[in-house]
């Protein structure tokens, strides 16, 4: 019924993988090469520029970045007690350490530590992991620490294990009373977040 009923079998030239070089009146090949390269480069730049927003959108958004600090009332914490608060979606232990805990922590020689760096955001990056460097000046009894095992992110149990500090039930990492890794697979001391005592009763974390 239509003007052609069955399409004819067709073959095409096999040398179709690239543009045929021109002859009389055809463009200069070098100019064409430049054109192809420039066009290809634009395509690559365009694709990459389109990809970046698709990737960056997964980073924390402006609202998450703005939620940077929490204030904690610590007036009701007795020596030897601690509370846990949330900061950036992670538990932060605020512990008013007993004298015994502090003495034990101070007695450890730096050479015995698996991770000799303080990991304290309030100090320089390379500060040694002394007990004092795990706290802030004048408030050495207060350990404010992100209570997340540096191995694979479990929450260790407090006041347990061979060193009287923290014991991670997931893979057996043991931390001492200053939250420093002593034994087990965890590579680093538990991190100290940026914090300050804004008065005697209140700690601001972040």
């Amino acid at each position: 019924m239509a003007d052609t009923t069955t399409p004819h079998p067709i073959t095409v030239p096999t040398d179709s993988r690239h543009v045929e070089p021109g002859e009389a009146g055809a463009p200069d090949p070098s100019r064409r090469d430049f054109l192809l390269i420039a066009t290809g480069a634009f395509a690559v730049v365009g694709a990459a520029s389109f990809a970046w927003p698709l990737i960056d959108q997964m980073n924390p958004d402006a609202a998450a970045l703005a939620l940077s600090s929490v204030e904690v009332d610590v007036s009701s914490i007795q020596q030897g007690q601690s509370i846990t608060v949330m900061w950036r979606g992670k538990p932060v232990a605020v512990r008013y350490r007993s004298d015994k805990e502090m003495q034990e922590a101070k007695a450890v020689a730096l050479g015995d530590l698996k991770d000799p760096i303080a990991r304290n955001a309030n100090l320089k990056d390379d500060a040694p992991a002394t007990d004092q460097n795990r706290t802030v000046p004048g408030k050495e009894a207060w350990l404010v620490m992100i209570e997340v095992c540096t191995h694979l992110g479990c929450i260790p149990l407090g006041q347990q294990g061979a060193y009287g500090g923290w014991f991670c039930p997931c893979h057996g990492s043991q931390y001492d009373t200053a939250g420093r890794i002593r034994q087990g697979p965890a590579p680093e001391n538990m991190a100290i977040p940026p914090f300050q005592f804004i008065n005697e009763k209140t700690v601001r974390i972040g």
Partner: protein
Amino acid sequence: MAEHTSTYEPRTGIERWVDARLPLPRLLWDSFVTYPIPRNLNYAYTFGAILMMMLGAQIITGVVLAMHYVPSGTMAFVSVEAIMRDVNYGWLLRYMHATGASMFFIAVYVHIFRGLYYGSYKEPREILWLLGVIIFILMMATAFMGYVLPWGQMSFWGATVITNLFSAIPLVGSAIVTWLWGGFAVGSPTLNRFFALHYLLPFMIAGVVVLHVWALHVVGQTNPTGINIKAKQDAVPFTPHATIKDALGMVVFMIVFAYFLFYVPNYLGHSDNYIQANPLATPSEIVPEWYFLPFYAILRSIPSKLGGVIAMFGAIVMLALMPWLDTSKVRSAVYRPLYRQFFWIHVLVSIGLGYIGSQPPAGGFIIVGRILTAYYFIHFLVIVPLLGLLETPKPRPASITEAVLEKHGRGLALPERTVSNTKVGG
């Protein structure tokens, strides 16, 4: 694929190894590199590639938006605003997705009308055409459910009105509507299921697109002459010829897209959708997105609930019936002087219906709407079948090559090595 012999020659060991086990590279090579296309395709034929690009862009931006969107009656509106304000590049991605939907429809309408003009639905391309109609219906369902997600006033009331269409079904209508809603009105359950389906349907579209392309490659592309490829010189290989032409079409389309996206991102939307959904207050006028307006006008033109719904779906069924309604032996409107005129009238009537759909249903708009609706159906059911019987087509060239020769003047010698100085740009 079926009609030409494979020219893929694996060159390396790895290529041979893969080719012996899963000849996917061969399939792609034969479909998108050496596949012969008519040499006389114009830019209307690049919209298939543009639609592929838009489907990809919508899926990519949509997946990314779903990472931030919360489908619940209380959180949806706020989460969309969080995307617009706080998420890195969220405003860009969301505007891209929202204006992208409109761009998708612009492209699909050009694609459909191109098919109607050049007779792309005719034998042996009926299944190809029907698959296209299925894609169009899936697109409309997807777009409708996507528009509900921001949970603005138009989202909510649009969902209410459109789901209520099903209440026109005798006996089971209201049960179906309650089932669609998951409640006794549009609410959180409705929103949640619309989100799930809005995420699902594009992948179904992608599946049907694969079938659509498959069918296309079995029967071959039409072209402005409507004459199939008969000889080697009628065709050029897909790559680089169609590839680069499609690429140009896509980039130019992207410029239009970028203009809407960056300079008038809310032009195609409705300002009421920036008001959070309120089940207690209907907006003064409920208008669907522009791409539904012609169908909406048809719906409203019939003064009966069930009749309106049937007419609206009938308007799409008309498209599906085109291969059998058109009785002409000639494929392309280029050689059909009368059909060509009626085609353009049909385009104008469709645009007119769209305008009527955007206006309040009162006074003269109702009358004009009814006239145009009647004409819409007359076009398909009366004019198209009659024209095929009554019209005298113009003489057609014997082949694509002859048509090209005609266009460029008889002085040219074909094939391949001739240089056209008259028109190199296409």
